[in-house]
């Protein structure tokens, strides 16, 4: 069985069951079940999540991209500080970047004040953080490969030759 295809299927729809996946990959149900378990155990599959449109759910959320410049540390380079920043639950993602700054940090909070407070009091004050530049998100158009308001429904005729 092709593991890449299995992962692609699950990445696109985590609800697919081994019974549904098995025929698609020309594999047995047990084989698929074992493969998924193995991928979960070795942390290839990290988590099954749901992509939520929070705006639609009526929840106010504020998120910001923070450009962080760091002083790399002896032995660990950027990793030590990056891991430390990861620990904050307010931080949704942390990526090391090439270019004008080092870390792209996505932070989420319930209000502008909460996010700015976090940046000012927690993030910017970490030793080794040289500077932060905060960009608040105004609107999300596409996330994780999904266009938020797509408007592209199935417009085909119901029966065609």
């Amino acid at each position, binding site marked *: 069985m092709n593991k890449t295809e299995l992962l692609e*299927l699950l990445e696109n729809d985590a609800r697919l*069951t081994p019974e549904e996946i098995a*025929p698609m990959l*020309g594999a047995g149900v047990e084989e698929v079940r074992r493969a998924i378990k193995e991928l979960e155990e070795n942390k290839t599959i990290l988590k099954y999540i749901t992509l939520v449109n929070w705006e639609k759910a009526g929840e106010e959320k504020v998120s910001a991209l923070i450009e962080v410049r760091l002083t790399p540390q002896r032995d660990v380079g950027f990793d030590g500080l990056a891991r430390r920043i990861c620990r904050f639950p307010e931080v949704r993602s942390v990526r090391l970047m090439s270019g004008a700054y080092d870390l792209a940090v996505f932070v989420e909070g319930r209000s502008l004040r909460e996010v700015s407070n976090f940046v000012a009091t927690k993030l910017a004050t970490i030793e080794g953080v040289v500077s932060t530049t905060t960009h608040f998100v105004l609107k999300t158009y596409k996330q994780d490969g999904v266009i938020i308001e797509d408007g*592209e429904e199935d417009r*085909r005729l*119901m*029966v065609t*030759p």
Partner: protein
Amino acid sequence: MTSTWHERLNPLVRNLPPSGIRRFFDLVAETKGVISLGVGEPDFVTPWHIREACIYSLEKGYTMYTSNSGLLELRQAIARHLAETYGLFYDPKKEILVTVGVSQGLDLAVRALVGPGDEVLVPEPSYVSYAPVVTLAGGRVVPLPTTVEEEFRLSPQQVEAAITPRTKVLILSYPNNPTGAVMDRRRLLEICEVVKAHDLLVISDEIYDKLTYEGEHTCVASLPGMKERTVLLNGFSKSYAMTGWRIGFACSNAEFIAAMTRIHQYTMLCAPITAQMAALEALRNGHAAMERMVREYNRRRLLVVQAFRDMGLACFEPKGAFYAFPEIRATGLSSEAFAEALLYEEKVAVVPGNAFGASGEGFVRCSYAASTDDLIEALRRIARMVRRRGVRPRVISAFLSPARSAAG
């Protein structure tokens, strides 16, 4: 005394039966909440880079006629593509014509070849247009029924037996709509021997060539001695999810393409430039997107075939296109009765097999160009309906029986 419109009609048109799909379409349109597996086109929307290239062409003002034959750049890209894929070399200046879908290519080829009384061999079940187009040209359709035992492939003996002194053309369409059958190279070679021995011509509709899931597609024109007696028809609709753009192409002998072009220049002038620009982009940069779609179809194909077999229906393994063609005789219903019962009882639309010719009776066409979610739900409903008709499931398939839980 004045004649009615009906009386005034050209007798060829007056006697042309409406498509079997039409009647069923009306039934489906009246029903709410239907999951349709009756659609003969991709569920994907045209890849964005193609749409974007088309928008750009409009911004740049490409809104004029093209030459009758189509944009030379597009014909050159088609020639390159055929050379790379099949080792087939057509002169883009003389041997390729850009048409408004394969439908128009078919019409032009038939009109340019077939006169009153000429016989055209048409395999069945097959796409609904072949026979009417031949009839409209004044030709006589000789259906060649294929069977599930023969995996819906023509046999050379069958072709040979149907040939008369008036036989002029053999139509081939593999991968096939509605059966999903493909033609293996060996049998195709045998058929071509018959074609050559009787000096026939072939019109080969290969619109589904890219959607071949097992083995490699053999292009009829690439076989020894066949390029000179084949009109190759293909297009962008299925492989690049571009049905609504209506762009196809015909490749053949220069003299014959010139004849087709003569009809085309008076009746169509040229294919729309906007769609031709999009087709050009599809050939230049569409390969990756196409491969993604083919992979996706293949997974659904395997799922659907297994589901039908699990629920107790015999289902021939389709190796091309995006249709499964399960046999529904075990339910005791005719194709039409089955399709209607399924629509009324479970709100799933499939197309009765006999819409594609008499030999399609006992089968229904299920398109798997539908989202996996819809497919699974539709299969579950079909399983329920089939079971009520007393068909014993082959296995109690885990995904066909229980309702799919939201949490998975």
